Each structure stands twice: as C-alpha cells, then as structure tokens.
C-alpha cells in the first residue's frame, strides 16, 4: 500500500467546560489513503463534523485541540497558522458541505465562483481560467455547461448546485477531499448521481476522500473503508466489507440492524371497512402553477398508506390540505364519511379533533415555553375531555409513548429529538383522532431512534385502529410501515398498490428509478 495521504494520530478536541462530555473528539487515530473513500459514520453528536472541521482548521468556537496530530505532506495541520491554512484550503484540501445552496454565493454566477478559486490559488490568464472552469463543469456531467456557467445559483436545482460545489472543491485538484453529508439534502435519484460522480473522481483523479454521513445505505454504496464514530471515539474501523458484513463492535451491529429493510413485511389484505379518510379528485394550485392533479387516497381504519415522492412532488401540500391549513381548488376530503372541506368556524374546530398530524421537525413542533404534561392534557381538553380526564389521559399517553413520569413538568428543550417526536405523537393521540398524518415524521431522527419511533407508531396504529397517512421520501421507511404505497411525482399519482407489490414489482418507470436509486440496495 502506498504512503497515506493524511495520517491522524490520537487526535482529541476538547469541549468547553460544562458540556455533557469533556471531549468532542477523543483519541481518534486513522489514515486516509490516495484513491480511497473513507466513510466516517455516526449519529448526531458523535463528533464526526467536529473532526472534519478541525481537519480544515475551522473548529467551532469554544472548541480546542487537546492533543494528537494530523500529518499531511510532512506538516502537522493542527499547528498551522490561519495564514498557512489559507494556502492549504482549496489547494491541498477541498471541502464539500451539506447545504449546496448555502455554500454558493448567491450574487455571483457559477463561472465567477469557480474562476475565483483559480484567482486565489493560481496565477492564470483570464482565458485559461474560463477554459478550466468550463472543463470542470463538463467533468461534473452538468447538462449544457455554457448555460450553467452563466447561471446564478438560484437558477439551478439542488443537485446541480452540489455539482458546482464539487467542481469548486476540485478546481485546484486537491489531494484530499472532505465531504460533510454532501448528499443528505438531495433527493434519492439526485443523490445516486452525485455518489456515482464522487466514485468516478476517486477512480480517475486518485483523490483521497473523507465522506461523512449518517446514512449506512450511502456508506454501503460508496465506502472503501469505514470508521464508525460514537461519543467522539472511533469504535470500529476497517474495510467496507469487514465493517458491514462482519461488524465487531456492538454499536456497529446495532446501527446496521436499525437500517430499515427495503423488503416490506407481509400485511393482511384489507377488510371491507369503510375508509376513515377518503380523498377524491383533489386539485391544488399555488398561483398559476397546479401542484396536485386529481389525487385519490382512501385509508381504512387500522391501515397505513404511505405517500412517497421526492421534493416538489406535492406530498406536503397534500398533508396541508388534509389538515385544512390550506384549501384545495377542488375535490373532496371526507373523514369518517363527512366532507370536511365545507366546514367553517366551530364546526371546523370540532372536526379537527378527528384528523391529527405529527410534524417533521421535532424541534419546531412543540412550543418551547410550555410544559409537556399540560401541553398534552390541553389537547385532550380540546377534544372534549374534562380537566381530570384530560390529565389522566395525558399521563397514560406519556407512558404509552415510553416517556418517564418526570417528563410531565419539563419543557421541550429537556428532551432529545426522538423523545420530542414521542411527545408530538402523544399530543396528537390525546385528541383520540380517527386519522393520523405523519409528515416526514422520522426523517430528522438518527437511524436507531428512527427505528424505535417507527415501531412505536406501528404498534399504536394497530392498537388504536388508526388510519395513518405516512408521508416520506424514504422508501426504506415506507417499506417498514406501509400497507399500501402511493407514489407521487410532480403532483400526479403515478403508481399505487399494496407495499409488497409496489416495492417488488414496480410498474411505473419513475417507481423503478426511485427503487434503483435507494442507497445501499444490495447491502441491506
């Protein structure tokens, strides 16, 4: 094996006093070789982002390197001055961030931004800079390179932006590329293309790449070697084959076990029950642009129907229509046989009890100023319970979603993302709804927590015989929880059917693309 590109030995980064642990990164030792993709996997708080920020000389404020070294090209990166760093960043180490839109300057065209990298690091004539920029854009497989070069970031899609960011990171052909969750903000089909591009770059240019992600599916698709981080330490490191097929550490095993399978469970056939939720002919427009076309969805009590689609497919617009946050152009939404679209005032407020929503963002969906117990009890009161009944119901629900009694008097800030999502579920259930809408309700959660919340939802749904509309971009999650899957593309339902049918024998080309793009399809 050739000499490693980057050699990290016993690197520790200290957290400020009063944090929940003394070190953000503790005693990390690892090598990155040329022409190799090293994936660093970990859940939130594992220290993976602090590690890479430190390697870029940009450790977050308040954190300080407590020991160890990171040697690249004979120099210890950790002792460089800010001036020396400026020579290295972009030239020897390239960086790709999570949010492609945020990493581009909205006031400069693509051509200007790429050429700016050359201006900083190389003394090239203008024509040469432009030629190189164009060549880079072509290498990124961006369509119509000339148009892209003259575009501003807002005119490009997320995937296109991320490719421009990669082009900028590669402009000076750095030996080492650090990519922090570079595909997390992208749709699966776009993600698949960007992953393919990154693999090509490794093969054609021999870059050493540190690829940080929380998604084991992505890891399985792209990693040569894998380092698993937890609480700031590397608990396991090895080749992709070793780590994924023969994990040694318990935590790695647990992580792998938590990845939802793409193979759906066998589900009983639907009974002949009246649908609890019946949506027919739903059309919705934002201004002149129609975003939903003739949507039909029927969910019987005790069944889960998933709406699967990429960003912009209109799935959140459906959710907002269902809970009457916005009103459609036309169509019918019936809950327990009653059309809810015509309702106003107190009739509308009365209906709201029957159809409840669990939101995506566990941090935004709970009022930070209210205590958890009274918050849930208030929902029960609104559904018509007396105060005493409501308090009792809230206590039961807290227990049902697996939270401790002491949760009652705490505010949301005292809970983790997964616990907050449980509180959100308890609040929705406190109204004794017939229909539950879960809008990307597990997307913001770490994979192990995601599995627990999914189990909880599935269990409650069966026990309470709820009709659930589960909205997600993640086919794996949909496979785990759904009886039926509805595939949405650009506001049209392109395919629907039992989960096992849709996932194993997809009929529509779009569904096939989606399934083919699901990361780590062969591994899990």
């Amino acid at each position, binding site marked *: 094996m050739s000499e490693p590109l980057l050699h990290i030995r016993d690197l520790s980064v200290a957290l400020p006093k009063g944090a929940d642990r003394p070190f953000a990164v503790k005693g990390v030792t690892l090598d990155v070789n040329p022409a190799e993709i090293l994936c660093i996997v970990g859940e939130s708080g594992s220290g993976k982002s602090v590690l890479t920020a430190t390697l870029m000389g940009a450790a977050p404020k308040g954190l300080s390197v407590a020991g160890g070294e990171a040697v690249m090209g004979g120099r210890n990166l950790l002792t460089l001055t800010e001036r020396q760093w400026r020579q290295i960043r972009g030239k020897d180490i390239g960086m790709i961030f999570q949010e492609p839109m945020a990493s581009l300057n909205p006031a400069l065209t693509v051509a200007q931004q790429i050429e700016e990298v050359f201006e900083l690091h190389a003394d090239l004539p203008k024509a040469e800079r432009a030629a190189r920029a164009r060549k880079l854009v072509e290498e990124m497989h961006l369509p119509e390179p000339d148009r892209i070069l003259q575009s501003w970031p807002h005119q490009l899609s997320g995937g296109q932006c991320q490719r421009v960011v990669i082009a900028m990171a590669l402009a000076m052909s750095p030996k080492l590329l650090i990519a922090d969750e570079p595909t997390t903000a992208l749709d699966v089909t776009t993600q698949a293309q960007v992953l393919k591009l990154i693999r090509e770059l490794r093969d054609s240019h021999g870059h050493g790449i540190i690829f940080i992600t929380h998604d084991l599916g992505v890891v399985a698709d792209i990693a040569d070697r894998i380092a698993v981080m937890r609480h700031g330490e590397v608990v396991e490191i090895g080749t992709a084959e070793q780590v994924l097929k023969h994990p040694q550490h318990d935590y790695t095993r647990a992580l792998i076990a938590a990845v939802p399978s793409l193979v759906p469970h066998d589900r009983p056939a639907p009974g002949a029950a009246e649908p609890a939720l019946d949506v027919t002919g739903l059309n919705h427009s934002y201004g002149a642009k129609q975003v939903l076309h003739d949507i039909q969805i029927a969910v019987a009590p005790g069944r889960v129907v998933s709406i699967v689609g990429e960003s912009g497919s209109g799935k959140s617009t459906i959710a907002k229509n269902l*809970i*009457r*946050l916005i009103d459609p152009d036309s169509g019918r939404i019936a809950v327990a046989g009653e059309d809810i679209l015509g309702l106003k005032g107190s009739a*509308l*407020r*009365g*209906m*709201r*009890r029957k*159809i*409840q*929503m669990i*939101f*995506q*963002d566990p941090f*935004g*969906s*709970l*009022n*930070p*100023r*209210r205590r958890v117990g009274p918050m849930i009890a*208030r*929902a029960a009161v*609104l559904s018509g319970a007396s105060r005493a009944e409501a308090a009792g119901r809230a206590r039961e629900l807290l227990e049902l979603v697996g939270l401790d009694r002491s949760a009652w008097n705490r505010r949301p*800030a005292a809970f983790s993302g997964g616990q907050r999502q449980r509180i*959100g579920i308890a*609040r929705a259930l406190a*109204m004794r709804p017939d229909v539950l809408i879960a809008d990307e309700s597990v997307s913001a959660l770490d994979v192990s927590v995601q599995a627990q919340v999914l189990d909880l939802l599935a269990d409650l749904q069966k026990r309470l015989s709820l009709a659930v509309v589960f909205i997600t971009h993640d086919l794996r999650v949909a496979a785990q929880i759904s009886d039926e899957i509805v595939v949405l593309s650009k506001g049209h339902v392109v395919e629907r059917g039992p989960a096992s049918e849709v996932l194993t024998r997809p009929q529509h080309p779009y569904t096939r693309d989606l399934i083919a793009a699901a990361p780590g399809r062969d591994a899990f």
Partner: protein
Amino acid sequence: MRQLTPYLQKPLVVVGGALSFGWLLIAILAPLIAPYDPLLTLQPLAKPLTQGANGEFFLLGTDMLGRDIFSRLIWGARTVVIYATLATMTAYAFGLIFGLIAGYAGGRTDAVLSFLANVVLSFPVLVLYIVIIVTIGASPVNIVIAVTFSSAPAIFRIVRAITIDVASRDFVRAAITQGESTGRILFVDILPNTTGPLAVDFCLRLGYTAITIGTLGFLGLGLPPPTPDWGGMVNEGRAMAIAFPHLVIFPCIAISSLTLGLSLLADGLREVNEAKERQA
C-alpha cells in the same frame, strides 16, 4: 432562582439593574429618605454641602425658591418612575395586541394596521408630543396618552415581525389543527415566545420615556409646577445655571443615570438572550 443565574453573572445586568432598581427603590421610599418637604421654602440658592440658618444640611443645595434639591430629586424620581412605567406599559398593551393580530392575521388586516402605524411613525416624535400635549393640556394622564400614542406604533412593528416568525412554526400549526381558538393561539402559544426581544425593548423604551418626560418638563409641557419633576428642575434652573450650576447638574445626572441603567440592563438582557439562543 436558577433561571436568574445567567442574568446575574453579567456585569451589564448587575450594574444596569442596580441603577434602575436603585431609582425604583428611591421612588418607593421617597417619604422615608427625603430629608425635607420638596415644596417647602427653606433658604434660596444654598450651595451644595452647606448648612442652613436653622441648622438644615443641604446635600445638593437649594433652588431659587429655597427648596431642597436633594429632596426634590427623590420625589421627582417618583414622578418619572411612575409615569414612565405607566406610559410604557399602556404603549405595550396597544402595541402587543395590534401587533399580534396583524402578524397572525396577515393580509388586509395587517395592511391596514401597518399603514396606520406608519402614518404615526412618519411624524418626528417630539413634534408629536408637543402637538398632543398642547392640544389636550399638560397633566399626568395626558403625558401617558401622548407617550402611548407615539410609542405604540414602534412596539406594534416589533411585535408584528416576531409574530410573523413565530406563527410560521409547526407548534402554531399544531395548535390550529387541534382546534385551539385564535385568542389562545395568540396569547398562550405565540406571546410567551416573543418575550425575550420584547424585554430588551421594554427596558430601552422605559429609558427613552424617562428622557421624554424630562424633555416635556424642560419645555414646560410636563407636570404643572410645583410638582417636583427632573426636566422641570433643569428648565427652572437654566437661567442661573452659570452662577449656580448645581441647579441643573444634579437633575441631569438623575435623568442620565436612570436612562443609562436601563440601557445597560437592556444590553445585558440581549446578550444573555443571544447566548441562550446559540445554545438552543
């Protein structure tokens, strides 16, 4: 108490708080602290730290009518603290209610309310005060009305902006989908989430109002004499300020120390709030 700890660790909060609450305490305890009746003529134009003919001691001297300046400052604190607080609170009552409504309802309601606020805001504040006081006369209640009328629109705009932000969060949507009434959404869900920035603004505005009341007093539009009033004291002493600087210096120090205290307190609160937000 534990919630107060981060505030008490800030020197800005401690110094600002000590100045502001010191004046509050002086205002409350005025009858106990003041050595003399603020309206009583003792000996005209005594210098500070002098002894009177009848054995009185004038810490800060006396004015041209022979009234003890120290006692007048202490009683004047009452006027400022009571009316500045009252005026700021009524301004807040209006600003909060209309700001919440406009920010939450949006659309035409917001357009109309914002337009009205902007009309009031387009007048220079001092001109507005003078016009109002001259029209309705100088009295404690009218001062409160004038301050309310001219500050409420600015408060309205702040509250409206914060409300628009808070109302877009999912917990407000959750409250809507639970069938919560609009009133409760405004006052139970949204209002408590606006208090951080509003507390800062309240302190600052209280300081401005103290200055305003001082300014009105100085212009002769404040409380009718002989009520002890810091601005009025500066005005009365102005003509003889060169020969007897103590007539104006001490009331000026009183006004600026109270305003400074409130500004420091506001800055400190803002720093703590920002630190809290960063943590979250």
